[in-house]
């Protein structure tokens, strides 16, 4: 049983031909894998490596270098909160505090109990004139206020209650499966 679907692996195998040299396909391939699984497991990275005729170690080295690749489980909706200087001057710390309370987590990378949310503090998102800024579901949310954070979170909770997403619901009473401990190395700043 492979971690990645067979049609995705086919898609990955076709990637190297698009570039002057096949190694360039590593990141697009990891992107596809992450899109399918939410985060990159060692199995997924190994399968990407085999599909691209590389050593798994090479793929692991690349995946751990870039911050947009997740090696640990993440929420369905991920908040990338900019806390760099321009956003900090305009209240990014408040944004983080409010967000933590709104989604009910204590630290970056932690997934909310319902599996819907996680957040990360990231470096400059390049939208400094709109500070404070967060990237959420492939969109920038700008000029953040506490109210705006609340509605971003609540909107997604609402959608969740209408659509069966396959993610655990907060009303689900079956016990939560034990959270896997990170194998090693977690990303952190500085």
């Amino acid at each position, binding site marked *: 049983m492979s971690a990645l679907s067979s049609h995705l692996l086919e898609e990955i195998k076709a990637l190297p031909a698009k570039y002057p040299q096949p190694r360039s396909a590593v990141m697009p391939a990891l992107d596809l894998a992450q899109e399918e699984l939410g985060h990159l497991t*060692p199995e997924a*990275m190994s399968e990407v490596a085999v599909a691209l005729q590389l*050593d798994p*170690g*090479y793929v692991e*080295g690349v995946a*751990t*270098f870039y911050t947009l690749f997740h090696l640990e489980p993440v929420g369905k909706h991920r908040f990338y909160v900019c806390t760099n200087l321009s956003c900090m001057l305009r209240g990014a710390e408040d944004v983080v505090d409010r967000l933590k309370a709104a989604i009910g987590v204590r630290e970056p990378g932690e997934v909310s109990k319902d599996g819907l949310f996680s957040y990360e503090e990231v470096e400059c998102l390049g939208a400094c004139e709109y500070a404070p800024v967060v990237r959420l579901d492939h969109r920038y949310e700008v000029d953040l206020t506490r109210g705006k954070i609340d509605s971003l979170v609540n909107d997604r909770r609402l959608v969740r209650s209408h659509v069966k997403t396959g993610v655990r619901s907060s009303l689900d009473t079956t016990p939560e499966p034990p959270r896997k401990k990170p194998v*090693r190395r977690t990303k952190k700043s*500085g």
Partner: protein
Amino acid sequence: MPDVKMVNVTIDGHVVTVPDGTLVVEAAKLVGIEIPVFCYHHKLDPVGACRMCLVEISPGPPVAQAGCIRPVADGMVVKTQSAMAVQARADILEFELVNHPLDCPVCDKGGECPLQDFTFRHGYPTSRIDGPRLHFQKPIPLSPNIALDRERCVLCYRCTRYYDEVAWEQELTVAERGVHSVIASQFDQPLTSNFSGNIIDLCPVGALTSRLWRFESRPWDLHHTPSVCSKCAVGCNVTLWQRRGQLVRVTSRENDDIDEGWICDRGRFDYTDVNDPARLRVPAVHGSKTTWAVALNTVADGIKGKGSKLGISLPQDLTNEEAFLFRRLLDGPLRGAKVKMHGRTALPAPSGEQLMIKDIDDARVIIIVASDTENDVPIVNLRVKKAVSKRGAKLIVIHPDAVDLDRHRETVHIRNQPGEAAAEVRKLADHELLHEPGGPVAILYGDGRGSEDAAGLVAACTELAAKVGAKLMPLYRGTNERGSLELGVAGWDSLDGVEALLSWGPPPTAGVPASVKFHAVWDHLPRPEHQNASVVLPATSFAERQGSYTNLEGRVQFLRPAVDAEAPLKESWDVLCELAAALGLPLDYVGIFPIQREAAKAFPALAALAQPPSPEPEPVPVLMGPARP
């Protein structure tokens, strides 16, 4: 060779003339100035990562510059001792030590550690390092043989670059980023490469250490002996390290003609048998300890006059001197005996001009036939990789199975049916890569580990070589297979049906034939096969032996004993002489040198034996003195 422009460079006042493009660090070496480096290694592509080699260069911007990535230019003036350079290097060393655990007292590298030496010579005299350091789990077993201590690591990337550039593998990589960057094996799985051990030699600090040697002894308590590896026919140069009669470490000893400083894991880690407490040290007859004289007379009685009913199993790492004496026995009292050498190929002695290992560098097309070079001739395999990835040679492999060299995407791998390699070789003459190779062509051939008809394959390769103007290299597997062949000890006979067996070295691979009635063993370790042996003679291991090997390209190299063969152990030439006497053939030598001189006279291929070279080159004096800020 195109004419290389020579340029003049001034380094600390010394003018040196070097080829254009030479790196500053290399030019400095020529005038005896050592610019300290961590990441730079003369066998790896320069990266300029560690910044240890900062010097002042003019003309140029008024900042320190890395000497390891800067090629010289005519008129360049390099100052390694200016205030700017001295302070820059001290800065780097301070940074290196910020997170370093400073556990030098218990570090295996202590005493031969560039980080220690450079800190002593170039570092700030006082420490301003404060506060907690970064901590990692330690040590991490990278493999059964190698331990990784991430706290000591200075991230010079020599190990990962070596893996990628030289071994063509990425099972060891850098993970994470910035200050959290770590050297890691892929998904924390053990390293499996046959070339992994070289990273220990490459590591400029104590981050990568041998688990076999870990905490065994301090480097300065060791005696070292320059010698030759006895594990295969390549003949890599090694240093054997001995302490209190134990062989505790094997490291590479760079010889650019052969190994370029790399050895395989078999050569590096396969030595603990030398120190095995169970080593055989006393001769025994029917299980009872006895004297050499009694034991050898018993052997002589058992094997004398048996003709073709006598079988002799030989070890592959038989020295030339041993083979020379043994040949005398075969020509005399043991005439007609069946001789079988362990682990050898079926390849005949080479004829005509041969390809040397260093010639592979310049080949434009390399053809490898019927050999799994990774395991058969590991360091030749690395030389081929270098020619392909660093010098752009094209590679054609003829082998039935997937091989390590397939890692290069442009490798042309022709998968033959076993036994059909010769047919594929014949087809090659029209191969597009051989139409205009643009330079020398190299053909390296094995025997497919017995699956190919050696004579047919050699004929096909010789024919192809003539057509395309290539040079040939037979890939022998047995350590001294070529030397033995040249001395007339082939060892291709079958031992089936023999009644007496002299088993020298490891037992015959096919087992002791059922027909054997008298079984004499000459080995360094006890084994189950010795159970019914009439006589067991203790043998020296490679670490106690002296003599010479002829490697697969015909080069004669000297094996030097790192550990004394203490009585009752006897050196093998001595044992052979006494056995000869017991068989009625007086061989009277007072030591190994007369044997070497006689062999040199008798066999032109062994002429080098007449004058053993000085074991170690003269050290180059270092001009650059301590330069602390």
